[in-house]
Structure formats: C-alpha cells, structure tokens
C-alpha cells in the first residue's frame, strides 16, 4: 500500500527534472530547427538572390575598415592584413585569421 503522505524522494525529483531538461533540450536541438526551417529558408533565399544579383563577395559583419568589411578581397601586402590579429581594430582584427592563401603558404 502506498502512503500518500510520504514525502517525495529527492532522487525522484532529480530524475524527473533531469528527464524534462533532456526533453526540452531535445526539442530545442531536433524539433525547433525544423519548425524554424520555413522562415529561414525564405530569408536565405532572399539573401542568396541578392548575393547573386549584386555579385556580393562578403558578409556585412565588420564595417569599420575596408579589409574587415571585404575580408575575402583584402590585399595581402599591407602590414596587419597578412596577419590581422593586430589590435588596431580590436576586436575584429583579432577575430579574423590570415586568409587561406597565406595559411597555405606557411604550410
């Protein structure tokens, strides 16, 4: 016979809360991306269309300097552009790494 007045075991509380946390995380990792898919597909299609139409080469992430705005087109000869880990435009200067061309040359 189950004693209804008995306090809930701590392990039961922990197991149930962990189970719901795992369930919520699984929803976020596997179901939420699917639910958002339609919205993002539309947005990405618009962006791709613009990239193709205007022949864009870079993302508009760092607008403070020409070589951070157009990372892929920055020339390789100016100091700091070979290795843009300098602090002159912190933090984007430290976020970026040398272009693949430079890295290949080092290898």
């Amino acid at each position, binding site marked *: 016979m189950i004693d209804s007045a008995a306090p809930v075991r701590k392990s039961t509380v922990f197991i149930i809360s962990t189970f719901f946390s795992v369930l919520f995380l699984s929803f976020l990792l596997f179901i939420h991306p699917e639910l958002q898919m339609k919205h993002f597909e539309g947005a990405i299609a618009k*962006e*791709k269309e613009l990239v193709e139409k205007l022949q864009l080469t870079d993302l508009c992430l*760092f607008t403070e300097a020409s070589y951070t705005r157009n990372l*892929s087109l920055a*020339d390789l000869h100016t100091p700091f552009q070979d290795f843009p880990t300098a602090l002159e435009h912190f933090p*984007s200067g430290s976020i970026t790494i040398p272009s693949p061309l430079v*890295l290949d040359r080092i290898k």
Partner: protein
Amino acid sequence: MRWLERQRCFMDFTLSSLGRRKRKNFALIAVYVLIVFMLCSVIFFTNALRRQAETLLDDAPEMIVQRMMAGRQELIPIDYGDKIKSIRGVRSVEPRLWGYYFHPANRTNYTLLASSEAAYGDQSIEVGQGVLRTWQADSEGKLYFRAYDGEALALKVSKAFDAATDLVSSDLIVMTEPTFRRLTGMPDGFATDLSVQIRNERECAIIAEKIASTLPGARPILRQEIIRTYSSLFGWRSGYMIVLLSGAILAFFIFAWDKATGLSAAEKTEIGILKGIGWDSSDILVMKFWEGTIISLTAFLLGVIGAYLHVFLASAPLFEHALKGWSILYPSFQLQPEVNLYQLAVLLFLTVVPYTLVTIVPIWRVSVMDPDVVMRQG
C-alpha cells in the same frame, strides 16, 4: 531492481548531502553553468554563422579579378575584360563598381555599389536597413552625400532591402553607374574589379593562372577562396575562438583541480562518520560519483539550454559588442538554428566526465584511510 533501488538510495543521500551545503554548491553549479554556457554559445554561434556564410556565398561570383599596383589594389581597366573573355572556358566578364563612403557626422562606413539592374533613376538609391538606422533621411526621404569634388549630392531612397537580408545588405547603398561615378570620381573605362563567370567550375584554377600570366598585376580570387575565408574565419583556430575557448577551458581546469586537490573539513568528517557507521570505501566512491554526476549533468543541461536560447532565440546579444568593435553599423540578423551533435558530444565528454572523475580521486584517497584518522583530520 535491487541494484537500481540501491543507486536511488545513494542519490537520495547525495542530494541531501548537497542540500546541507546549499550556498557552496549553488555557487559551484553557477560557475559550472557559466563555463558550459560560454563554451556552448561560442560553438553554436560560430558554427551557425560559418554555415550561413557558406550557404550565402555559394552564389558569389565564380572569380573576381583585381588589379594590383605597388602592393595596393588599383582600379582595373574595363578592357581587361575583353582579354579575359578571350581565354577559353570564360563565359562572361562583368565590371563591378563599388567602394566605400565614410560619413563624417555619424562616423560610419557604408558600401557604395553600382548595379546595372537598378530600375530606378540616377537620383535614387536602394539602401540596406543599417543605412536607414544610422543615417537619418530628410522629410523627403533623401540622403545627402558629399561627392569626391566636394559638391553636395542629394539622393532619394526609393527602396530599402528586406530586413531579412541584413547580413549581406545592411551597409549597402546601391545606385546607378553614372551616379556612382559622379559621387566617387571613378573615371570612365575603369572599374573596381571584374567578375568572371566560368563555364566549368573545375577549370577555375587553370583560368586564374592564365589570367595572372596574361594580365600584368592581375590578382584572381576564386569563389572557393572566398568561401574558405569565411569557413576559416570562425573556425576553432581563429583568434577570438582561441581566446574564449582557452580562457574557459583553463577556468574549468582550475576549478576542477581545486576540487580534486582539496576536501573541506566537513567533507572529511562526513566520510569518517560514514566509514565509522559501516559504509564501505566503494559505497563512498559511488556516493561521490553520484555527486559529481548530479552537479556536472545539471550544469551541462542548463548551460547548453541557456546557450541555445541565447544564440538562436535572442540573437547572441552578449557577442554583439565583441563583434561590433569599432563599427557603428552592425547588421541585425538571426541565425538559423543548427547544432553539430558531434561537437556537443565532445563538450559533454570534456565537461561532465573530467569533473566526475576528479571528484572521485581525493575521496578515494580519504576513503581508504582509517575512520578515526579521517575524523581527527577533519
């Protein structure tokens, strides 16, 4: 079933024991959650951004040809295009006219771009949402520019790019070619660079070599290189990632090491009493295993859930300031949720397993000692 019930009893005891040191354990879990949250946010953010960049730039021009002179990029004569077109395998060549415009009043850089497909007149422009946010148009919707010769130029904003395209269009000001030349002073017959379309993408590298050898000072940049630039930009080796990851991992190890090397007097006394009332060393190890698992699993779950909500639902506000840097104009964008399960598994292995193990080591040292000695030490 008996084994399972036994483990649940250990869990009950461990949770009660953790509850007796509420403040300390709450602080411990808070630090742990913060470390997992930071690591996971960086992983989610960089992966999603890299993936988005790869998807978007897949439609970038197959090849861009720049002209270099004395180590700097110079304007390229448009007739270079005819020479490039004569190379077998080249489908078409189009000049690209673009540049930057610095607005001294709001200290913002904008990207000017001439488009042959512009359907509006020479007095109108199409702008990104970031331009509208940072540059206040007058009551007629006009933006005032200062041309290269100092002359004022008022251009009407006829259209704004969709907010959904902010990641690629935020700072763009698109205009017709005559307006671009009038504003920037770029002479006729010259362009910023040339965009080259190629019939067979596998021939890109050979065509690039031919262009470089045919045209003095030409620098071809392939689409693959553009995509690779962005793929490596947010790779784990990039400066920012290294700084964040190494900081967080070091913090985690200091925290775990501290836990591994010292037991508090209360913990030692507790172990002594448990041994005194008949607990086995193996029982104490199991109990401590559950303690490590409960703390690390809770911190991991809360940290990962928090990171997901931060990056994909709140658009990573904590990283915005870091990415913004000196720039006034920053795009407003949402990242498509995408999680690399392999990286998540690695993170789980790097955070939960070591912590659980390091909590067992000092306990094992104490649990094999005589209960009387342990209690006296405590």
